[in-house]
């Protein structure tokens, strides 16, 4: 299927469609940044800007002084996403390995049980999980871990972190990947006297790097972007994640569009940079079935 043999007009049409789709895909994001970098204050502009004129960081400066917790939200988002991601990269790999390679009583039953919940929408668990987190006192906002007076984690963050540890998609991803690895290496390592834990850390883990990379990227993005559950359990501004805080800007600064645009653009920026850096792993991860989007 080489396109070069086709008539010119057909090739032009193909390019028009592909470039048009790219424009439609990227333009809303582009426009968001244009509006964030144009000083628009409280008076709505008479027509939308298509390039920042004049280019200015004043919206961002006003955002950071008016929405005082913005930096806090970013810290909360990072801490939550990092903790949940670390958990999944370690323990999903371990259980994925056990389900893929090890034979033990109850393996198929347990895996089938996990599999059967895949189709149950997350919304089904909202109410009881809310009841449990509230009864455990996780809706309180006392600080939990602080370093030199800087609060890393509040009790309320646990209300987001703990249920986040239970996502099972990583278990499937890792099981599927590890199943394709040859078993000879493990057997050889055992004969050489490796303990079971060493077999896992020295043989399996190094071979899992591509899948672990995809899993950790997706877990991070997923938790960074998570909204409905944090919206339900995070009560005080100081505990908000970026998505919850940024969505709240719309209510708090209803017509101060400059602040709202700056808030949304700044929240999107880390993921965009992250994507541009690790593009290959993102696309690989989608192929492995790690994420919908």
């Amino acid at each position: 299927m080489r396109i070069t043999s086709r008539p010119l007009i057909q090739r032009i049409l193909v390019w028009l469609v592909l470039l048009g789709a790219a424009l439609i895909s990227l333009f809303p994001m582009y426009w968001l940044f244009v509006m964030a970098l144009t000083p628009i204050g409280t008076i709505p502009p008479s027509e939308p800007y298509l390039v920042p004129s004049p280019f200015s960081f004043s919206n961002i400066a006003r955002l950071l002084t008016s929405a005082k917790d913005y930096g806090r939200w970013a810290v909360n988002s990072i801490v939550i996403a990092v903790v949940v991601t670390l958990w999944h990269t370690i323990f999903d790999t371990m259980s994925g390995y056990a389900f893929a390679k090890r034979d033990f009583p109850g393996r198929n039953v347990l895996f089938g049980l996990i599999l059967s919940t895949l189709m149950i929408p997350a919304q089904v668990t909202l109410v009881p999980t809310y009841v449990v987190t509230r009864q455990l006192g996780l809706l309180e906002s006392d600080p939990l871990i602080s370093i030199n007076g800087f609060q890393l984690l509040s009790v309320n963050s646990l209300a987001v972190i703990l249920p986040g540890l239970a996502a099972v998609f990583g278990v499937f991803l890792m099981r599927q990947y590890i199943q394709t690895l040859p078993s000879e290496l493990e057997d050889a390592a055992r004969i050489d006297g490796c303990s079971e834990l060493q077999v896992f850390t020295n043989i399996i883990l190094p071979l899992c790097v591509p899948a672990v990379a995809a899993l950790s990227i997706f877990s991070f993005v997923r938790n960074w972007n998570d909204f409905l559950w944090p919206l339900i359990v995070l009560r005080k501004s100081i505990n908000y994640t970026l998505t919850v805080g940024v969505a709240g800007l719309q209510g708090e600064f209803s017509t101060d569009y400059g602040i709202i645009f700056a808030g949304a653009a700044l929240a999107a920026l880390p993921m965009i940079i992250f994507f541009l850096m690790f593009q290959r792993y993102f696309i690989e991860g989608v192929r492995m079935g790690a994420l919908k989007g």
Partner: protein
Amino acid sequence: MKPISKFIRQHGWSYLFILPTIATFSIFILLPVLSSLVMSFGKYTFRDGLVPITPFYKNYVDAFTTQSGVFVGAIKNTLIYSIFTVTTNIFVGLILASLIQPLGKRLQNVFRAAYYLPAVTSAVVIGMTWRYIYNGQWGLANFVLTKLGLITEPIRWISDPDIALGSVILSAMLTVPATAVVLFSAAMGAIPNEYYEAAELDGAGPIRKWWNITLPLIKSVTLYLVVLYTIASFEVFERIYTMIPSGVANATETIVTQVYQQGFVQFNYGVAAAQAFVLFVMIASVAVIQFRSLRSDVQY
């Protein structure tokens, strides 16, 4: 003691390896799913706990009748949203993947990245951006349409209840389906070139080859994507919550906005649980129907 210690020596590590997964899975998925089912047949308050109700299925009746049946409208809205967005997304994904397939590796990557980039940003940011694209006075949509001479009066995209749902749907249709492009193009890349060469010897043109070789061979991916996108569209929330935060005359209520409303604004936990189970039944039946329909006429 002997057999137990032997059992532990043999399988201990296996259970240790799966322990964290099974523990979190049981506490935060299995248990909540089961208790959600129980709660959907009772009345829960933090003061009294769960108390029985009569008839026991009252929450399921209330789910559909409360606030003069807004949930029925929400299901209808969700289905309309789903039909339009899933069809468009799958079709656009298929076309774009087919068109980038003949390009060189580097160009393929550039286009895939351009299509994928917005998908990594939060639906919250995307919803907010569209809210202002649709702004009645200075939004991008009215500006472009006016400049093109297509409209003379500004359209009230998200404040007119008659078109608000349509505006939400349009925004989702104009989002390039990143996952579909990537998965379709992976599936197309896996088709052996010999098939196409053989068809060329028979004098088949590009359209014939696409229709007779490509399409039949990517059928299972197509089905997978249809299920994936249908489920995601049934669960639509962020886009609507941020685009039209307080709703317009229930015109943009969907199943999940109703679950949120009932559970966490009105605190009718039982009704919210019942509505969530309605969503579950819908998702399960779509998945079953779609997989059945594939199995019946699969051809390789």
